[in-house]
């Protein structure tokens, strides 16, 4: 009986991803390129935002992935804590730098977009602030992984940090919302370019979202394979030293 948990076996994971990774990688490049080229070359300018509307095809998928990657790390950490599958812990480790990069892309594209639209690179808008906070959480998580030598201890500690951090990240999100509303009533800047988006934008946007998802998946698989190998290497070296 084939079960999802079989893929938690590192050997099986390596065997499956060996042929899966190239497929996902090619798909990621093709879909992302399609979406971005579509968005960049073949969409009309927005009557209000002009050509800056094209940034949406980078900004929204990156922001979406920034949050999704953290959720994925949370799930992987829970699986590690409950079922002790090493692949899960290593996948969470491999995911963190991708999430960090996505958050950074979201912030940078947001700043570049905000400059012509709002006249400022940065505003302490709740949304922007939450992303900056998320960026700090990613940094802390990665730093903790980097600081601990023993892989199992590192996996345990970072998993607990991820759980606790998730709770506080959500709290911070609401705190930021509360904080800015408290200070500047009604002066909020909306990041979304209007709720009624035309299909001319929606279709390439969804393509880009799918593409960014695939990019994440490809990098995640590659990173997890590397981490599994590094883990095995560490175990071998330790065993040799013991013998």
């Amino acid at each position, binding site marked *: 009986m084939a079960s999802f948990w079989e893929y938690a076996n590192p050997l099986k994971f390596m065997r499956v991803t060996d042929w899966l990774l190239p497929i996902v990688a090619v798909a990621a490049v093709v879909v992302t390129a399609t979406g*971005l080229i579509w968005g960049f070359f073949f969409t009309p300018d927005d009557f209000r935002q002009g*050509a800056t509307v*094209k*940034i949406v095809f*980078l900004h929204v998928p990156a922001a979406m992935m920034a949050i999704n990657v953290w959720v994925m790390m949370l799930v992987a950490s829970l699986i590690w804590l409950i079922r002790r599958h090493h692949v899960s812990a290593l996948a969470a480790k491999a995911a963190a730098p991708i999430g960090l990069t996505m958050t950074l892309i979201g912030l940078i594209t947001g700043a570049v977009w905000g400059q012509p639209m709002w006249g400022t690179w940065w505003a302490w808008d709740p949304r922007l602030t939450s992303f900056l906070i998320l960026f700090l959480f990613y940094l802390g998580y990665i730093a903790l992984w980097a600081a601990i030598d023993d892989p199992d201890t590192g996996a345990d500690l970072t998993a607990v940090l991820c759980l606790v951090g998730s709770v506080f990240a959500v709290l911070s999100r609401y705190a930021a919302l509360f904080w800015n509303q408290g200070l500047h009533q009604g002066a909020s800047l909306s990041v979304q370019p209007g709720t009624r988006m035309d299909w001319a934008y929606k279709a390439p946007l969804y393509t880009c979202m799918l593409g960014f998802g695939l990019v994440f998946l490809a990098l995640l698989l590659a990173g997890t394979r590397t981490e599994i190998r590094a883990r095995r*290497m560490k175990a*071998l070296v330790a065993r040799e030293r013991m013998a």
Partner: protein
Amino acid sequence: MIPDLGRYTLEVSLAYVVSLGLIGVLAFFYWLRGRSVKRQLAEIETGRGKNG
């Protein structure tokens, strides 16, 4: 071929260059580290094979 970005040429192209650049750098590092770890592991495993 290149669409006319009007007065936002700098902003839009900057966003694209930086974003794709970041993803590219990340992918490059993942690839680089993956390659080096793979090679080191292979060395250790063949070394072990010779010794015992």
